[in-house]
């Protein structure tokens, strides 16, 4: 019972890591981000199956999650 988490290019570049993970379901995105060793404040947007979600979203079976940073601002 897993889902995938992929880091967006901006976050990958910022953290200098490859950024593709298989994660367990039943946890929210915030907890999952922390468990991956990523500072939650660096993640500006969470996309789940191409829909924007908050970090409170509880991960379900088969979810494709993408985490994105804000790199530059307006």
């Amino acid at each position, binding site marked *: 019972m897993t889902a995938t988490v992929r880091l967006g290019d901006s976050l990958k570049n910022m953290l200098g890591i490859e950024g593709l993970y298989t994660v367990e379901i039943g946890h929210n995105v915030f907890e999952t981000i922390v468990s991956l060793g990523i500072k939650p404040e*660096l993640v500006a947007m969470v996309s789940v199956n191409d829909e924007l979600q908050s970090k409170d979203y509880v991960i379900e079976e088969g979810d494709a999650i993408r985490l994105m940073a804000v790199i*530059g601002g*307006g």
Partner: protein
Amino acid sequence: MNGYAGKILRVNLTTGTFTKEPTPADLARDFIGGRGFGIYFLLKEVPKGADPLGPENKLIISSGPISGMMIPGGGKCDWTTKAPLTGGYAGASMGGHFTAEMRYAGLDSIILEGISPKPVYLFIDNDRIELRDASDLWGKTTFVVEKQFKEKLGEEYQIATIGPGGENMVSYACINHDYGRQAGRGGVGAVMGSKKVKAIVLHGTKSIPVADMEAYRKAGMALYKACKDAEGLKEWTTYGTTQVVDWCDQVGALPTRNFSAGSFEGVKGIDGKAMREKIVITDKGCFGCPSPCGKYSRSKKFNSYVEGPEYETIGLMGSNLGIGDIEVVAQANLLCDDLGIDTISAGNAIGWAMECYQKGIFTKKDTDGLDLKFGNVDAIFSLIEKIARKQGLGVLLGEGVKRASKKIGQGTEKFAIHVKGMEQSAYATHNATAMQLAYMTCDVGAHHNRAWAITYDLQVGRDLVTSEKVARVIWLQNFRPMFDVIGGCRLQWVELSIDRDLYVPALEAITGIHRSWEDLEKVGERIWNLTRLYWARENEGFGREWDLPPARFYEDAPTSGATKGQITKIEDLHRLLDMYYEQRGWGSDGLPKPETIDSLGLKVAVA
């Protein structure tokens, strides 16, 4: 000259005459265009001590070599002048389609000089250039004026116009274009109003010479492909700048109740999702843009349409005023745009007045009877109108928070949120030292666009005071504003993470001159030093004290939200400045050293 329309148009408004001169090749070589041209002309031609609203000041409108070209984001032009808001340098960037049309009319820059004896508008159609009577337009709002011109002349004409705010010379009046794009900051609209120029209307059909057409085609296509393939394109296009509202709230950067905190309990009512679901009806981009961040919105509550709001307006007209309803923010946005005043400065000024009222410094006797509590929608709408029309309390607030707080005293300077007289844009900087330094040292005042360093704060530790942070801010200040020099939009690089090196062959193909990013950053550094020298020339005693932020950011720790109890000490701010000045080659007084001016080859420019 490849990459340039070839002419600079001077409009002497006092005599009603025009001159065209060739765009100087050495100017193009050394300063490229945009704000590079702007600061060069400002420093050379506007005499020391000129009244920003007097005949000696000039309004310099400049494109860059990628303006109007098939390069993503090639729709930017720069408006430079001596700022009525600050008394220093103003360089405001405007998107839309104006700059492309200006280049097609054969013009790299337009310089407005003197003062017209009566209201006029500048009409340009290729080589036909006229000053036409604008008496019947004076007093009208921006949307009315633009619509009137479009209906009369046709959609192909591009219009930049001021509203009542500019006519009344409100210190932060803006210039509007394309029903929702602005040259927003510093009071460029007040300068246009002081010159009695209601609008610039232009159309052109000329072409721009290109050094290598095939290389240009390839480089342009590579840039568009990079944008199209960018991972974040869908989210960026869906939400635009509003994608950061929630994030700013979570990290304590969302200005709340006059920057007294950085997190807002009503954020869900004004975030990107609320906006998209409640009011957005379509996306809207500038010239040649593959990733339109503009959102066109309809408020059912107010039965109105507006482009926006974007993040800065949501921060300043929303959370900063205690407003948690995106429709109210959109309506405030509409009023400011239509009346022609900057939403960022206006949101700050109203926030400052609300805090004065909350503290009992202002009573209803001072507010024209308005109950100026945070969150009072009617009071906000009323104050926007009063500011633009210079009525009642609006007269004081229209001067900007620096001057207003100096007049009122009673400690209000501590929560007048500005640097160098320019109100701070929408990032609360309690305990974010790199972002704070970026605001402190920005060349127009407290504006974010030159260096946006807050993610770097979060990445490396927000309270750290290190030379690496200072170096990062300087690098951003040299690099990011180069988009305003070449006439492009930085958001494709910023938000889509496209490789900045893709711009190098494009610029070379257009101009025939190879410039690496290191070369471009050197130009950025030269321009940065020139703007600093301009501030010093125009302001007696200019230096370190001018770089300090309001006491709110080193004395008043927020009592709620993500940055509760967090503050940067004043000693640390001075340490940041010490390192910044040293790395810039400036003295401890904050002024460029003679050897720095010399090494950057600026002796001639400042002579």
